[in-house]
């Protein structure tokens, strides 16, 4: 039955994460943006509270932020819970949310493709007292949206592989305890040559060369990673040799990378929705408080706010639809692309409308201008606006046998 109301568990998660976002995240958002980092003591505090960007959440098992071991599920609703929680967290502050300890985007590939031993080894570290991070390294200077064109190489040697190459734009990449790194065993094989490795911090030949300065999400670390004759043991090949030999002619490594997106794009879309909602709610209150109750300005504001609310709601529902499909085990690649495309664009538009309503006063150390800077990347990372259109169009044309 079609329904747009939250289950008790979804509602409970929403309230819990909202409480955290409001009382713990939002108060440090502007200061963290100014400093360009999230204070260590804050990270330690929330880690002790048991709050993290949880790996299993991204593969549909758990909520992304708050561990809840006593959960009993009748119907799988992890993806829905994850998008609900992601929206609330990003409502607090997207940069702080992405900096929360946990496996982050590295979680899904480990969860979906790792051997039981690898899952245990790499995911168990997040139960420790001190904050730990995981990361996901796909993008390269010459291969961003075209993930099939990666050039980082993995040369087979006795007992493992030797990685050489460079990765850029890696969220939490310098502080991560391990990074899922995509490399190719033979560029001439195309996608079939792709392999995914877990590279641990401190591995010789693996360095974080620098962190980049960005328009927004300034409190969140974005790093460049360099691999110079970096030896990675066979045990760190995600899924082990069997995964690849069983699918000798199939692009498994590439699929690991792409499959990740089906579960993470709705999360990213949900975060964009949360950011837009934060800007909208703030601006709504300002208009209520400061604007004259009648006249041109008032009606213009009413129209813009209603437009914002409508766009936010549509993007949220599309996100829920993608998450719902994942939960019921149906392919959701198109829905994931659609919600990401719609939400990214929508959120920038809504933040811009809010800035317009606030006027020049919105420039001065203001939450909304920060959200505007933060939100732009949601239209870029996890696949740009253009990539999402490509993914969508490809699926729409597939029944006609036309590959666009």
């Amino acid at each position, binding site marked *: *039955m079609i329904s747009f109301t939250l*289950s008790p568990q979804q509602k409970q998660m929403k309230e819990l994460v909202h409480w955290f976002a409001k009382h713990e995240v939002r108060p440090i958002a502007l200061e963290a943006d100014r400093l360009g980092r999230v204070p260590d003591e804050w990270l330690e505090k929330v880690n002790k509270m048991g709050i993290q960007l949880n790996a299993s959440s991204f593969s549909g098992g758990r909520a992304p932020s708050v561990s809840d071991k006593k959960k009993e599920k009748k119907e799988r609703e992890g993806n829905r819970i994850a998008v609900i929680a992601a929206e609330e967290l990003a409502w607090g502050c997207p940069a702080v949310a992405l900096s929360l300890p946990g496996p982050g985007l590295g979680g899904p590939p480990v969860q979906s493709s790792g051997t039981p031993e690898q899952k245990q080894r790499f995911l168990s570290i997040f139960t420790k007292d001190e904050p730990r991070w995981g990361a996901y390294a796909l993008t390269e200077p010459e291969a961003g949206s075209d993930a099939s064109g990666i050039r980082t190489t993995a040369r087979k040697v006795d007992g493992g592989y030797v990685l050489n190459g460079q990765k850029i734009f890696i969220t939490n990449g310098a502080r991560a305890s391990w990074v899922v790194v995509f490399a190719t065993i033979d560029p001439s094989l195309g996608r079939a040559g792709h392999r995914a490795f877990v590279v641990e911090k401190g591995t010789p030949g693996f360095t974080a060369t620098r962190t980049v300065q960005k328009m927004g999400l300034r409190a969140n670390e974005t790093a460049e990673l360099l691999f110079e004759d970096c030896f990675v043991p066979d045990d760190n090949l995600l899924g082990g040799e069997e995964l690849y030999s069983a699918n000798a002619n199939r692009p498994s490594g590439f699929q690991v990378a792409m499959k990740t997106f089906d579960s993470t794009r709705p999360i990213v879309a949900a975060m964009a929705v949360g950011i837009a909602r934060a800007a909208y709610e703030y601006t709504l*209150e300002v208009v209520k408080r400061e604007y004259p109750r009648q006249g041109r300005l008032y009606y213009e504001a009413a129209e813009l706010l209603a437009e914002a609310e409508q766009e936010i709601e549509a993007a949220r529902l599309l996100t829920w639809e993608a998450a719902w499909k994942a939960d019921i085990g149906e392919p959701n690649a198109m829905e994931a692309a659609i919600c990401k495309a719609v939400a990214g664009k929508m959120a920038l538009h809504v933040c811009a409308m809010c800035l317009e309503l606030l006027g020049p006063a919105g420039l001065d150390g*203001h939450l909304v201008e920060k959200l505007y800077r933060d939100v732009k990347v949601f239209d870029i990372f996890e696949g740009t606006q253009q990539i999402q259109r490509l993914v969508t169009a490809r699926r729409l044309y597939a029944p006609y046998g036309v590959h666009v």
Partner: protein
Amino acid sequence: MISFQPTEEEQAFFQVARSLAVEKIRPAARECEKRRTVSADLIARVNELGLSALELPELWGGLELPLLSQAIIWQGLSYGDLGVIQGLPGAGEASSLFRLSSEHRAWHRYREIAKGGQWPTVAWVDEAEQKEPLKQPIRVRRRGSGYVVDGVSSPVRLASKADWVVIAARDEEETVLLALDERVWEIEEGDIRLGLLASGIARLRFAEVYAGPEQLVARGPEADAWLNRVRARNQVIEAAKEVGLMEAALDYTIEYTAGRKAFGQEIAKFQGVSFTIAEMAFACRGAKCLVWQAASAVDRGDEQADGFAWRALACAHRSLRYVTDQAVQMLGGHGYVQEYPVEKWMRDAEAQVMLYGRERDWLIRRGEQLLSERKERVAP
């Protein structure tokens, strides 16, 4: 629990509606438009399937379906052709009022006539609000225990076919809801060329028409309360029809661009085309979600249901204009000529949007509702 899964019954209804749309409605659309009426066999088929009684009260032999189920069915039907759908005779927008006031004495005669299985056609004239700047409101004055109606309505659908007219208007003090029959009005067909030409759009002229007390359905707060509920239901239904039309335009355009070749390849392979197709799909799906959500809010009796309906209709209006315009654009010159359906769909879309309220008005109204809400203040 969040779910986008229609019930089995809804899926079955949808299949029936879609099949009818594709097999019967669409092939007949041009001819219906040319004749400015829906063909009798099509009407008979729709009635036979019970599709004209989706909203009508059970007490009257109607199906009285949840609004969400209706939204899905109307979406399926309008996939065929909106011009035909809007021209289907019967109770039309008055169905919602009948549903809410099914035992009212004003309908006794209507029900008597309807017992033969044919629902007399009703034109719905809602002039209780002065929103459109070009509208000359119908005047209603009290006389004795009844009312006198005077003036010319805006163009409304089913007007030229109407056996009954339900009027919502304001007298000097309050809203009045009247049910008129026996053709006490004149039809002004006018020179309507834009779209929905099979739907009987016309103006209705009332020259000092007297409506006795038995024709008064409600007045004052009672009339306002009914009207608000009727409008929300109708807005959702109209928005659902719009989704059906935009889905038709999208699917047709996908198929066309997948087959049409230029510069040595299918034009779908040009990103100027494929990206537009993706955008059209985004618009369709977003609008559909908001319509389903509004329908479900009305069914639940959510106190914000009217606001949800406004935003769903505003979104559907915008998406419909965008998608049908782009459909014409993607077909190029073929889009503009009448051998292909998309030019008609674009015209129908624009006429539909004109009939069912300006997007901007719905947004402003929703905005005012949002601004009057009390909510916790968010710290900067």
